[in-house]
């Protein structure tokens, strides 16, 4: 079993750290390039969502990513202390509205769901926790 933890600030520029960490894990854990790329995409969507929508203030917050590889399954938990938000349940999209007036983000969670094999949201200890799992086919 392999483990890795990443502690990030709530800044979009932290995406680079996610990318670097994934590249390193891909090399040391032996993940296929396609997997690291798509997982990077899923994490970027999830992270961006949190940075953009989770906080009501402009304070500095910590977002923690736990990585675990066990039995060919990559397990990622993303924790933040923002306001309760379940990204797996979307707001009603009003498709009658003109496109420009509608919020962006649906595509992100759609991609996360398509890329990962399992997407689960939990709220505990005043923290949001998004759990992502992907089966690694070598």
């Amino acid at each position, binding site marked *: 079993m392999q483990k890795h933890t990443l502690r990030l600030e709530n800044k979009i520029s932290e995406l680079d750290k996610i990318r670097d960490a994934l590249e390193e894990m891909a090399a040391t854990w032996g993940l296929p390039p396609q997997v690291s790329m798509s997982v990077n995409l899923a994490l970027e969507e999830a992270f961006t969502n949190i940075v953009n929508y989770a906080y009501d203030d402009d304070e500095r917050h910590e977002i923690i990513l736990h990585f675990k590889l066990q039995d060919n399954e990559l397990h990622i938990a993303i924790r933040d202390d923002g306001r309760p938000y379940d990204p797996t*349940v*979307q*707001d*009603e*999209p009003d*498709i*009658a*509205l*003109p*496109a420009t*007036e*509608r919020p*962006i*983000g*649906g*595509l992100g969670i*759609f991609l996360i769901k*398509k890329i990962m094999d399992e997407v689960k949201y939990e709220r505990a200890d005043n923290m949001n926790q998004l759990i992502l799992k992907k089966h690694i086919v070598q």
Partner: protein
Amino acid sequence: MIRRRSLAFRIITRVLAITTLLFVVTLLGYYHYTSRIVRESARANAIELATNLSGRIEQVLQPMEKLPEMLATTLEMGIFDMDSLHHILEAVVSNNPTVYGSAIAFEPDHFPQHGTHYMVYAHREGEGVRSMIIGGEDYNYFYMDWYQIPAILQKTYWSEPYFDEGAGNILMATYSVPFFTLRDGERRFSGIATVDLELEWLTEIVDEARIFDSGYAFLLSRNGVAVTHPDRTMIMNKSIFSNAEEWNAPVMREVGRDQIAGISSFREYNIPGRPKLWIYYRNLDSNQWAINVVFPDREMYASLRQINTLLIVFIFAGLLLLSIIVAGVVDRLAAPLTQFAGSARSIAEGKFDTKLPAIRTRDEMKELHDAFTHMQEELAQYVVNLKEATAAKEKIESELRIAREIQLAMLPHTFPPFPDLPQVDLYAMLKSAKEVGGDLYDFFVMDKDKFCFAIGEVSGKVVPASLFMAMTRTLLRTIADKEKSPARIMETLNRSLAFNNESNMFVTFFLGILDLRTGKLTYANAGHNPPLIIRKQNGQAEVFEPAKSIPLGLFEDFVYGEATREMQPGDKLFAYTDGVSEAENAAEELFGEDRMEEILLLCREERPRAVIERMERAIDEHVKEYPQSDDITMLTIAFNG
């Protein structure tokens, strides 16, 4: 080559029989085992082919499954709003050559401003793609299968394949997927997205698949109707179930049921009146269509049969070679036997110095050679001995013959004996069984009116008997010179014979003296067969009474009696020995006294010589070729008065 059938042929046939049996058993086992392997490998091939096909089909089908959700998402995220749905559908149709049309149909009153029905449909038209908004009373899609079934089941749904007339009779199937949107925080069924899939590409992919020489694959829909088939007339024709009925092939029905149940299997596929087939089938992952891979039994086993044919050819060639080698070996081993056979024949011809085949081996052949050598030596020695023995025997036999001649010469054998004695006519015969016999007869004139005759038989038929006989005859003549009565002659003869008779030989003897003037016959009988008189007067045979006295030579002092009988002119007396009455034929039947008497009566008018010759013929006819065992002696005297 197989000259000596009995040896080389037998060895070869036995060796061949056993090796052939072994080969047959081995071949059968081998065939059983390898045919299982071949079947296993055919099964693996069929599975691989079907899996490969399935993979290629899924590659086309699976993206279709993602379409509705992707459509829903793009709708939800607002890139494509309700009014530009046709753009996305047109893109789907134009960018996917296998998609003939695509539709999004919403639930009733999803967009109240557009009325109850709202369905966007894009499809190919000529080279381009056309889209439209349809739905209403004229096209009430809510009740159509492609909408209603997935809507009720809340599950994706593949329609049965169909020919779309509007699209130019292209074989198509529609894939329908329900999609959902969130309203008031609730995930709610919102409509059905469809793609109409052309199936021509399926035909191409599936028809390309080949197994063995003529094995092929075809795709059956959920209802068992052919979606693809190398025989185009089968496509969208009767279902496997109706074909099962029509062709009386229950296996097809079972296969159809398996496919509905999603079971995959490899099995025999026998359709009456067609070559035996094998089939493997499995369902596609996306829908319940089943890939069927079919190939002839004959082709599956073709390679095996080829190998087996080759094997059999090799085995037969091997057996032939074996036969030749065995024949050669046996030939070489048995060659001396032929030479031995030749030698044996040569030895049999008397060439005891025949050269035997040279044997250099130290085996059974050498033993045979030694045995032959030994036999040669023994035979040579034996023949020498035999020659000596034969010479000795011949010498004895010739001496005996001479003795017999001398013996017989002692008996009177000139007939008629007394040409100057008209009162009697007489004939006698002695036919001896061996070189030296014991019978005797004699006759002579005693005085001028007395005619004496005798007949006798010495016991035993050996050389001493003949001596005894000769002695009897000589004594008789000597005694008859002095004694004139038959009893006296008998007694004197008896005394002489019994004296010093250590070998206890004896002689039966009949002696008669006929008075030629009166015809009175005085006689004595010492244990001899009684003679007969054939009376001229009544033509009857008169048998003398049986002898009351014992044969001569037994007791020195025995007193012999005599009797008389009158003979009338024309009467004939017939005296004989056992050899006549007991002449035996092959069936051990005796000639018999009755027969003898019969013959005598038949020729009662004949002269003595004719009577005896007639009797002799009758005996010959009775005895035929059977060897004579006893001396035959007959004496007939006719009294002429």
